[in-house]
Structure formats: C-alpha cells, structure tokens
C-alpha cells in the first residue's frame, strides 16, 4: 500500500501511440503509466487506498490495481509523481525573499548546520555560522530528499544530486546561485559546469593543499572546468594568493574571511575563568602561574609535538591543552606543567579561552587556511602567538605576535611547516613579561576580531554572486570558424619543409560576416589551437593546453589573451 491520498507533483497527462504518460514537471521526467495507474492518479489526491481500490475494482482486475500500487511505491522512492515531505508551495510563496540560493553539500546532514554542537571540524563550524547568517540575505534551499521547512528562509527541497542536470532549467529559473563546498573526492560537481543553464556556482574552498596533492589537483580540475561565471571562495588572502600561483586567472578565487560571534566570545574576568578551570581539573597552579593555551585536536599536524617541547622549554609556565582527547600523547610521560583540561561544549569555549593568558596556534597542517580558534581567542581578548605560515598571520595582523617557522617548499606527508619552539618560547615570554604590551595586544586582538563578523561573510557571498552574474553577462559564445593548413615556406626556409598556420574565416557558424570582407585571416597554429579549443572548452582548459604547447609562458598567456579578444570582439 502506498498510503493515499497524496499530494501530486505538477503533472501533465498525455497519450502517445495509445500509451498513457505522466509528465512530472517538478522532476522533469516522463513516466509511462498503465491505464490503471492513470485512473489511480486521478483519484490520488482525494481518496484513500481502500477507496481507490473500491472505485476502480469494477474497471480493473485486482492484480492490475495491485501492480499499479507497487509501481507507484517504486516511483515515490525515486521521488517521482508524489510530493515527498511538506507541501512547501504556500510557504515559499508567502515567505520567500527574491533571492534564493541552492545549497548543495552532500554528505553533511543539513540539520547539523543548525546544531553547531554536533560539528567538530572547524570548517563545518565556519560553514554553519556562515549559513545561519546568510539567511539574512537570501533564502537557502538545501538539496535533499524531501520538502520541509528547517527555519525561516531555510528549506530542504526534494532535489537530489542526481536530479540536478535534469532540473537545470528549473534551477536556473528559481535560484540566483548554487553554493557548495569543495570536497576533493566528490565527482558530481564537475559535470555541472558543462551546462550553461545553471546559475553561477560558488565553491567554498577551505583546504588549499595537503592529502598528498589531492586537494590542489581537485581545485585545479574545478578551476579548469568552471564556466567563466563560477568561482571559489578562499578564507584568506593568503589562500587566494596560494592558489593563484598555480593558475593564470586568480580572479576565480574570492577571499571570504570567516567571522566570529563577538557576543559569545568576549573578554571576561580572567581570574574567574582560571579559577573555574583550576577547580574543574583540580590544579591550582592555573590560578597562580601564567597560562599558555592550545585548543585543537591533539595531533602532530596541529603542532602538538612542538607544543610539548614548548612546555619543556618553559617549566615556569602552565600549558593548557583543550581538545577531544590527548590521542597518542596520552601514553607519553608529559611535562609536569602541561595540563589537559578536556573537551568542552561550544558555549563553554569563551571560558576556556579566557583562562589563557596567551593563545598559542602552531598548526603545521597543509589544510590550515584561517585559524578560526585564533579569532575566537582574540575576540576574548587573548593575545595570540602564531606560526608564520599560511593564512593565520593575515588573520592576526598586528594584534598578536608571529613566531618563526621553517616553511617547506612543498608539502611532505601533509605537513608544510615546522614552527620554531625557541622563537615561540621567546615570543610567549616577551608577551607575558611585558604587561603593557600584553594589554595593548589584548585590546587590539579584541578590536580586530570584532571586525570579522559572520554577517560580513554572508553579505560578501551575496556580493560575490552578484559579481558572478556580471561576469555571466560578459560571456560570449565562440562561433568563429578556423582551419589548420600547411603552407609553403619562403625560399630561404625551403629546406625545413612545410610550415603550418591557421586561418580564421570572416564568416561565423551562423553565416554572419563577423570580420570585414569575405576573406580568411592567417593566425599562428597556437592561436588556432586556442580558438578551436575555446569552442567547447573553457578558457582555463585552453590555458592548460597552451601552457603545455608554448614553451614561453609570457607568449602563451599573450596567445590566450589575443584569442579571447578575437572571440569577444567578433561576438
């Protein structure tokens, strides 16, 4: 049984060669029906299973009706014909703002974005904050398997990943943009770029490298496949610049800094915080001795080994570690001045940060792009000492101290840098021994942190989409026609045999005269290759090919610029 009555999708019934069909306009799919199925659908919204069976029993055999019910059950499972979940039509009509974004983040439960306690990774937490604030600027529709309202302006819609291509026209009509998260192993996104109908796609990028080069390679694939009006976000200028060294067009990377909830993360009476933590872990030294804090997973990549060294180098200070567990370090004999203070729910984190006199961030990971905990510590007025690598120093700016690090020329087994324990030690002591400096940096840290708001982040996303729409308007199709031809060299070069060139016609694919006179114009083979490639491939793909074929990168870039100019100028 299928549990009628049910709300039907927008359907159109028709017959072709005597076969009845239902065109499911919500799913852009045609479903072949039996006569019994057609009659059942006519009753589906008003009658129960039993009533339908009774009504149709005079016209159909019981088996036919039963078979129809079974088929409907299959179709419902596929998301066809019947509305799954709530009937959102009214909500969307009355509540929706004019801009809707389709949010596609497979693999992460949408509800978790509205229950931050369930998230552990900083990336997902940042995403959750951003999403919550984004609702102030746009309706968010998360792809899923049912229709339901999650919060004001936030919906799950019955659009699966597998539906996206088929529904591209509808998506283009409905959504201002598609927001998604770069996940290096996903494969559903690359094919989407091939369809010009989709609205701009903005891919949030968090990890610039690591994973044995997989992250960079995934980014490079997306960069190549993206349409001119898609883009990435990068959490800091550093990350944007990092990516830019691998590509010719850095405009695809848009800096989108994270924010911090400055009402939650704020300075409090430090001694009160220390006292509470000291009581909790039963170590009174926390109240009496200056503290250095670490809040992260206790792993090599996060600099845990270096932090231990730091503790050994500074026996007069207390080093506090907050994290899910001590991991492999639990089996070690830890320095006496290293105190594990446990894992704490999010609402307790301000207290933890406030118990630190200095916040220490020494991640060595290639995935470190921003350092959200640094910003949270700063919002609590705790001056940070951070490693001089990747994006974190740009977050701290002059509101903390930056310690030396040995940065590697390339990743090695996910590590990219080795923080200098001695310099860290010196910077920490400098800060703790100079009250005036500490106070100035504490205030500066707070001041700087409050300038990073999630509202700004959310607003920036909308601005980026607006920019992508502007870029979309500038896109021109390439309808030029060209050939490659051998040509006879001049006499003095005759020994070298035939040379080659390309010729572009003054007539385009639509028989329009796009250049003066009925003629052809000679181009270099390099220009011709770029022109041919740009028919069905992106400028970034042409970049890849020219980078390979043309030894001189300056000339290769000039070729691409020239050919793009020809296409745009003759459009």
């Amino acid at each position, binding site marked *: 049984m299928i549990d009628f009555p049910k709300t039907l999708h927008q359907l159109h019934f028709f017959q072709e060669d005597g076969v009845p069909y239902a065109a499911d306009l919500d799913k852009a799919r*045609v479903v072949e029906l039996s006569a019994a199925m057609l009659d059942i659908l006519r009753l589906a919204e008003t009658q129960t299973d039993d009533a339908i069976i009774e009504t149709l029993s005079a016209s159909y055999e019981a088996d036919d009706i039963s078979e129809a019910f079974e088929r409907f059950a299959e179709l419902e499972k596929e998301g066809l014909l019947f509305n799954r979940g709530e009937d959102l039509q009214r909500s969307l009509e009355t509540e929706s703002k004019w801009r809707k974004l389709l949010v596609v983040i497979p693999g992460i439960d949408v509800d978790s974005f509205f229950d931050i306690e369930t998230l552990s990774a900083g990336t997902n937490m940042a995403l959750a904050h951003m999403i919550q604030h984004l609702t102030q600027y746009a309706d968010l529709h998360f792809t899923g398997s049912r229709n339901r309202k999650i919060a004001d302006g936030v919906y799950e819609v019955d659009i699966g*990943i597998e539906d996206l*291509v088929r529904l591209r026209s509808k998506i283009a009509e409905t959504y201002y943009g598609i927001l998604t998260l770069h996940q290096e192993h996903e494969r559903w*996104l690359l094919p989407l770029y091939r369809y010009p109908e989709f609205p701009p796609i903005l891919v949030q990028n968090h990890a610039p490298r690591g994973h044995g*080069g997989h992250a960079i390679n995934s980014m490079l694939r997306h960069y190549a496949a993206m349409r001119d009006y898609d883009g990435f976000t990068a959490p800091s200028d550093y990350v944007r610049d990092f990516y830019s060294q691998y590509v010719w067009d850095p405009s695809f990377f848009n800096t989108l800094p994270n924010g911090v909830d400055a009402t939650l993360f704020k300075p409090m009476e430090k001694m009160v915080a220390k006292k509470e933590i000291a009581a909790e872990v039963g170590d009174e030294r926390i109240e009496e001795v200056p503290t250095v804090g670490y809040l992260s997973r206790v792993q090599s990549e996060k600099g845990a080994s270096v932090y231990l060294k730091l503790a050994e180098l500074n026996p007069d200070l207390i080093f506090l570690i907050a994290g899910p567990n001590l991991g492999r370090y639990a089996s070690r004999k830890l320095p006496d001045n290293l105190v594990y203070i446990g894992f704490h729910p999010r609402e307790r984190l301000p207290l933890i940060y406030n118990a630190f006199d200095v916040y220490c961030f020494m991640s060595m990971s290639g995935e470190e792009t921003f350092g959200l905990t640094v910003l949270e510590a700063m919002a609590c007025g705790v001056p940070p000492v951070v490693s001089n690598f990747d994006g974190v120093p740009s977050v701290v700016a002059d509101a903390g101290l930056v310690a030396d690090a040995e940065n590697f020329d390339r990743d090695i087994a996910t590590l990219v840098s080795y923080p200098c324990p001695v310099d860290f030690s010196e910077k920490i002591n400098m800060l703790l021994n100079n009250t005036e400096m500490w106070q100035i940096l504490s205030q500066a840290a707070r001041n700087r942190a409050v300038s990073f708001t999630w509202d700004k982040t959310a607003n920036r996303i909308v601005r980026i989409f607006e920019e992508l729409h502007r870029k979309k308007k500038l896109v021109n199709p390439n309808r030029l026609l060209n*050939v490659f031809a051998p040509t006879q060299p001049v*006499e003095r070069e005759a020994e070298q045999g035939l040379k080659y060139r390309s010729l572009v016609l003054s*007539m385009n694919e639509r028989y329009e005269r796009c250049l003066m006179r009925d003629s052809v114009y000679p181009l270099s*083979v390099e220009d011709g290759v770029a022109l041919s490639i740009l028919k069905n491939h992106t400028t970034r*793909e042409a970049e890849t090919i020219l980078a390979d074929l043309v030894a001189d990168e300056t000339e290769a870039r000039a070729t691409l610029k020239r050919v793009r100019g020809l296409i745009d100028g003759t459009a």
Partner: protein
Amino acid sequence: MVSRTHYQLKQHHKFEQDDQKYVADLETGDIVEINDVEWEILSRYASQTRHQIVEGLKEEHKLTSIFDGIERLERLGQQGILLSPIVEAAELMTSDRKPKLLVPFHFTKEKSALDYLTNVNRYQFLTHLAEFAELETLAFPEEKKENVQDFDKVQVRNIEDSKNSALVSPWYALDGYDGILLLSQFTTDDLLYYGVPDVPIVHCIEGAQQLQHVLLKTLLTLGAFQSSKDTLVVKASWMKAWLAELGVPVENVQVIPDGIDVVEPINDKALAKQHTAAIFDKPMFTKQPVVGLISGFEPNRGVAWISEFARANPHLAIFVYDAMLVGVRSPNPYHPPENVVIFSADDDETRAILPVFFQALDLVCFPAMPGTPLSVVLEAMASGVSCVAMTKYEIPPEVVGAGIAVEADWDNFGNFHVSMAKLSETINKWLQPSDARAQCEDFAKEVAQRYTRKNAAQTLIHVFEEGFQRRTSDFRTARALFPPIFCRRYEPDTGTLRSSVYRLGTNRYDSLEDALAEVLAEGHTPAEVASVFKHFQRKHSTPVCEITRAGNGFPDNNKETNPAG
C-alpha cells in the same frame, strides 16, 4: 573543416501547461522547457533543413532567436536528449532532373584577371556543363550588374532580402543545391563556402605561370578547407603528382584536363609552315624543323631558358606559346633569339589562327609543370604532332603513347633544370623520320580527341556525384564517451605542475595529446589535426582517423545525465 553533426528528432511529445511550453523525450524520459521559437523549430525539425527552418521562421522571429533555438536543441542532442545523431543515408543525386549547381563567381573580376584562353576554356566548360546541370549564381544588391550577368548559361539568383542582410553568401548555398562549383582563382573569395556543410564542393584550379610556391600555398590552403565530400580539380596530372610529392593528401584531388576544340586539319604541313613563315615573316619555318614549345615557365626564368634552348638548337625554328611573354596585357621587352617566335592567343582573331601554327609543328615540347596549359599542348598534338615532355615524374598519362619524356627537375621557386644536351639530342633524334614517331603522331590525334569539352563536363558531374556519396563520412557522429577536462596536474613529489587531461566518467587522468587530437577532430579534418601535431612536433597514440570515425560513441542518455555516476 568538418561538417556539423546532424540529428534526427526522437519520439517526443510537445505540450503546454500554465502558459509554459514543454517537450518530453519519450525515449529518455526527459522533459525540457522550450520557448515559442523552439516549439516552432521542433515542428519543422523532422522535415526541414536548417536553412528551411530559418527561412520559414524569419518573418516571425529574430534570426538570432532562431539560431539560438536550433543551437540549444542540438546541444540537447549532444547530450542525447530529443535529438539523436544520424549518419545520413547515402543517396544518389536525383537522376530524374539535372543536378543544381551553385557557381558563385565574379565574372567580370575573373575575366579581367585571367588570360584569354583560360577565359575561353571556362566559358566553353560552363556552356557544356549547362547541358548536364542547372547552373545558378548569386547576385547581391550591392554588386554591380555586370559582375554576374555576362554569361547566359548561368541563371542569376537575385538576393534582395533585407531580412537576411546579416548573412553572407554561403548561407544561400544551403538552399537546395546539389553542389557548389568554385572556379575563382582568387581563392579567398570562395573559402567561406567551405563553411557550408553537406554540399559537395568542387574547386577548379588553373595552373599559373608564377612562382609555384604561391600556387602551392593556395592549394595547401584549399586542401585544408576540404572535407571528404569536396574535390580539388586540377587541369593536369603533374599538378596532382606535384602535390603528392609534397606529401599533401591527394585522395580528393581529381585531374580533369580542359576540353579542347579540334578544328578540321588542313592536312598539308608544308602549307601550314608557309602560312606560319609568312605571318611571322620568318622563312625559317619552311626551311628548318619546327618545334613548338608550350611554355609554363615563370616569365623571368622562361626568358632565360628559351634563349638557352634556342642557342643550343640554332637549326630549329622554335614556336613558343607563352601567355605571359607576349600579349596586350603584359607587354614584355624580351627579344628572343632569331630562331624563336613567341605567340599567345589574346583574342578571337589570334585564337582562330593558332591551329595553323600547330599544324606547322614537327614536334611539340613542354615542361610538365604547373604553369603549362595542358589544353594548348593537347590542341597542338590534335593535329598529329608527337610530344617531348620535360618531366620530373613519369611521362604524363595524358600524352602516354603520343610522345617521349626527358627527365627534368623544377622547384617551387621558378627554377627549372633539364640537361640541355640530352634534350637537344632527344629532340633531334625524334625529329628524324621513324616508325615510332609516326605511331606517336597517329596516337596523338586520338589522345587529344579524347579530351573534349563534353567529356570534361560529364567527368565533373561524376565528381559531384562521388562527392555526394562521400559526404556521409563527413557527418560527425562520434563524441567522446567521457569528455576530457584539460587541467593542470600538481605533482606532490616534485612540487611542480604539468598539463594533463581528466576524464569525466572514468575520473582518471589521461593522455593530453590524445585528448587534444580528439577535441580538435570535432571541428577539423584528420589532415588539419595532423598539421597541428606536426607543427608542435608532437605525437598522439590514437590515429586521428579513428578518433573522427569511431562510430556512434554517444553515451547512454541516463548515464550521461547522471552527474553522480
């Protein structure tokens, strides 16, 4: 250049709901929203050509909307939705009517640029062709009337439709023609016609007395524009041999010599010699053996060579036919040696007298090189004159049995080399009466009479028919099952980037060269793709012909539209 992919409409259903138009593909189950123009296009797509669709809708819709609509539907076809690619069934050109050929031609411009004899040959050719084909040319409002209307065998189609002013002349070639005959030697005027898919193009190229590399450049360019349905027609076998020697594919090169006019011979060589002697005021024509030299030399080199030849053979009376060294169009200060006269037919009067000179010849000699007019050689031979061919290939098939060959060499920059001693020896020996020469002279008459204008016209029609058959292979049906994304690849162990290609579907990196060849083959002929790889001195492992002719590689629709796949 290759033709666009052609599609046929699949089983579908169009419908409207809530003021929105839709079409459902009953094979794939896809439903596509369409606009008014696309609705109309779909109604016509099964029965009309692209040209007919545009012409039929242009009164109601903007041209760009119509083209946009067709392109969108065909883009869906690429994805396997609504349309499926077709290999158009080979069909014969309709036999119940004359084929209709478009002859785009700037008659006045061409007439003034070419020599008299070439113009006569062309006129005669079209006259005879009109017996077998309906010939039509296009006249645009902006053109001068005389450009198109001085030849009554070619109908003139006046294009005065302002709606289509944005479209260039090849657009009209889509309108029901069985073929396009290109005669212009100003090749850039005609290259745009190669953008027309499906219609066989025959491009006739004259040999020209110029530096051969200029002509070669033209021929190489034409070759690049051709697809398998198209044919390059040259007027002599040595033109084809020359292209083959240069490594140019000659599958689509046909040799169709111009037909000749065979006049009734006076059958009195002595009388012909007397006339010749009188006309040129050169008694040597009655006293010395008369050798004709049909020149194809570049003029500057020709002057030097003719002088050398004449000095080496002072006992011969030499009649040179050279359109560049004499004539009103190109007065030349060349004063040849005493035993040489130079002549060319520049008008009806001089044309009429030419057979007399040919009948005075004891032998005709010619360099088998691109500038030499074969039709003049054949006309000379038609009066029973055997030939000596100076050739770097075999004896030209056109004169086999009617003469002998002397080994020669020439390059593309006008230089011509033959052993003057050997040539003189051969000519002098051949001038001695012999059975062999007599046989050749008899055969010369037969050989020459094979090359009639009617035969040339019929052969050309046959070439069109063959092109029409071959056009099926131009329909591109193969597309990569797993489309390539050209992207850089980061090598973590070295920290460097290299260009690569990533395949959707297999989700693997692949050979850049192979993918590049595959992508280029979507819009270019195998020869063009080969040009690109030769230029970059790169190789790819998959033969281009396999890439382009890989059969219907269209993906299964469901797989294609399932991005999660």
